[in-house]
């Protein structure tokens, strides 16, 4: 066991964990942040995606210890963001299980590429599986947020 501080959603959290513990495990079982979902524990489905220093990361593919001195943002840290609004308005989820992962991935996408083209959107979004929708609603939600389509030019959620 090691005891360390993780910076999650703008807060320093002191937590004890085994060095072999994944970030997903620590977020869910130690910090009570269950927004990141276990879907495969194998890096395949993307349901556990969070942002680390603004980059999308599958938290099941990362040791918690690798998250020390990094800025971690989970779905719980995303408040009232344009992506969340777009997902609701475009019916971009059904069961909602993949939704936090998709939203966190899209959050990093739009910060990096506010004018992402179709290729880049596909590059990013093919990292997550949604089993309920046909992806068309997610596509529409993302495209509504591209810079040229945004009336509200306010920045997307920054890392806190």
């Amino acid at each position, binding site marked *: 066991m090691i005891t360390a501080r993780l910076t999650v959603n703008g807060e320093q959290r002191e937590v004890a964990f085994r060095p072999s513990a994944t970030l997903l495990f620590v977020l*869910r*079982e130690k910090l*009570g*942040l*269950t*927004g*990141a*979902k*276990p*879907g*495969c*524990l*194998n*890096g*395949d*489905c993307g*349901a556990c995606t969070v942002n680390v220093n603004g980059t999308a990361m599958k938290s099941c593919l990362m040791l918690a210890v690798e998250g020390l001195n990094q800025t971690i943002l*989970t*779905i*719980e840290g*995303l*408040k009232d963001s344009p*992506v*969340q609004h777009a*997902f*609701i*308005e475009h*019916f971009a*989820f*059904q*069961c*909602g*299980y*993949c*939704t*936090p992962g998709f*939203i966190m991935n899209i959050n990093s996408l739009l910060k990096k590429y506010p004018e992402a083209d179709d290729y880049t*959107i*596909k590059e990013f*979004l*093919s990292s*997550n*599986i*949604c*089993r*309920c*929708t*046909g*992806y*068309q*609603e*997610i*596509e529409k939600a993302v495209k509504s947020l591209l810079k040229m389509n945004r009336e509200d030019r306010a920045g997307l959620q920054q890392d806190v």
Partner: protein
Amino acid sequence: MGLIGKSVLRKEAWEKVTGTARYTADYPATDSLHAKIVVSPYAHAVIKGIQTSKAKEVFGVRAIITGEQFPLTGEEIRDRPVLAKDKVRHYGEAVALVVADTPQQAKRAAELIEVEYEPLPVVHSPTAALMPNSPLVHEQLGRYKREERVYPEPGTNVANRTKIRKGSMERGWNLAEVTVEERFSFSPSDHAAMETRCSTAEILPDGKVYIMTSSQAPFMAKRLINEYFGVDIGKIVVETPFVGGAYGGKASIQLELLAFIASMAVGGRKVRLLNIREQDMLTSPCHIGLDATVKLGSTRDGKIQAAELLFLFDGGAYSDKGADLSRAAAVDCTGPYGIENVWCDSLCVYTNHPYAAPFRGFSHSELLFAVERTMDVLADKLGMDRLQLRYINAIRPGDTTPTQVKLNNSNVGNLPGCIDRLKQMINWEEGMIQDLGNGKIRVKGVSCIWKTSTIESDAGSGVILTFNRDGSINLISGVIEIGTGTKTVLAQILAETLKMDIRMVHVQMKVNTQSTPEHWKTVASRGTFMAGRAVLAAAEDVIKQLKSTASCVLRAQPDDLEVGYGKIFLRDEPDIHLDIKDVAYGYVYSNGNAIGGQIIGRGHYNLRRLTYMDKETGAGKPGPEWSVGAQAVEIEFDKKHLTYRIVRAFSAVDIGTVLNEKAARGQVMGAMSMGLAFGGRETFVFDKWGRVLNPQLRTYRPLRYGEHPEYHVSFVVTPQLDAAYGARGAGEHGLMGMPAALGNALSLAAGVKLNELPLIPEQIWKMKQKEGYSHADL
């Protein structure tokens, strides 16, 4: 209020986009032990012995359970031990269960359990299972306890046989001038819901059993734990929060039983069992496979006179819902066509494959793949337009179904209308093939669909409405929010009926079998139909109570009162009114006198006038109504590489009145996506020992973003008269015709008959090889 059809935003939307929506495994487990399943590495083997001594030494282990002492389970035939006993019948079958303080300890101990097996010959397919010399999966089939209307054939691998005998086959074949016969086959696959199944169980000192589970059927879990283990039904409480995708896979009761025996083994302490993905695919039930033969005979002008169908469903090792799935396929065996003479045998066959749960469409995408591919073969043989053949034979009011139900203007949708709509959508007139140059062609494939829902003949749904002091209403229904948005639709039905602001309807998402009225199971596209009717009844109940109290205060007959817009008012003098909020908790006069009290509305709906099917002919009315539709895909096919992509996919479906436009489109598109993935890529790959080689999402691959086509959905509206606002079921239909439409497009594009799934390029290549394909032909 104009809420019908409106794309009301989901009631649980903000919970789901903020990560606060809780699924079963999201509830804290600090007070739980954790269970881990030991599974079989063999598809069929005798268990010679189980050594648990090393595992017991692992720190934190509280119990190790093996299959000795538990009753057999199964919904129609009690053929399945909770943990394998004496022998294993499929790869990944649960053999032992470890309970420990932490998941790591449980996993470590599970890895140390040594099971000695003696391999047995493996039954690889339903066709092989029916060979005279096939090994038996269940030697004791004749001795199992079973329901009355399931027909296993002891001494064979047949778990159930449903017969359809309609009209006269002799007459049918005599009238037939053209006949075709095709064979089809595909292996089991998986639902692959993003949330793997999870159950917790706890047994309190007074014997109360408390279960939380990611399920479509918490009420069935309660019923079956009572039946299997003899626990008083009133002492069983099952709770289901949000469910992360289900698609039928969570309608089977399986993990709950393991969690329950795990808790029993540790003196009732709470135990959590969360499936890892691999076990969710292999140990929990999967999507059924099928071998089918379809023979159709028609006159030269395209009127089908005879249909002979043999469905051999790959139920896998246990019959659980497979028996019912094979029966449902018989009910709609012909596809959506009015055919006078029908012979069908639909079998649920035991094999050494993982066993089957329901899968969205309940055996219909499966049977329709066979029937709709054969329809194309028949159209080609007749030299007839493929949609024209379907149009001529399309089932209509006045026709009878294979189980001889006479259809009318309410209980069947408008299939000819759907076909016409589809033709416009896909620009059918331009032809099925467009040459794009570059060795690529664009090709269209079509299919038609239908389905009725053959759930229990007395299945029902209940709704409770309670008022808050501000006049808003809590809507409490046993429908599980599995992603379909049904509870938002129920809120719409309620708000529309009470003419109130939808924001004043608060929906309870979680279901608790003790405090929530029963909804049979959240399956079969029955949520909106059954619970919708229950909402209407509950709304009537509320109106009656509001009027009753208000009639005293307003000194008027209840009959002269109306309810709506937050008020109870005199019909002819609306100014004379009470605010609902002043009545909802009882009315208090200025002097302090009070009458009435909190208004609690109740409503329920049970299916009516359904009947069992006759054992010899299948005659009977097993479902209330038939939704229909016509679908198409457009693919771009590379003639040299034999690869393709799906460019567009189309659905013209009659789901009656559309209650929530965007939600309904979402259901149809999502189902289409699943159907395309099933048709185009998804299958379990078995090796020669019956092991599944791809039990991970890395190797078992649902559709990803960017692989999806453009979706086009159009609704044809034939209201169902006895449904809330005329809405038909909509959850499954988008899926049902997709594999067939894809198969039809590809068979045309590649010039070979593609009758096996999934339709990967290698399959096309194989068929090309068989047909003596060579480079010179290109």
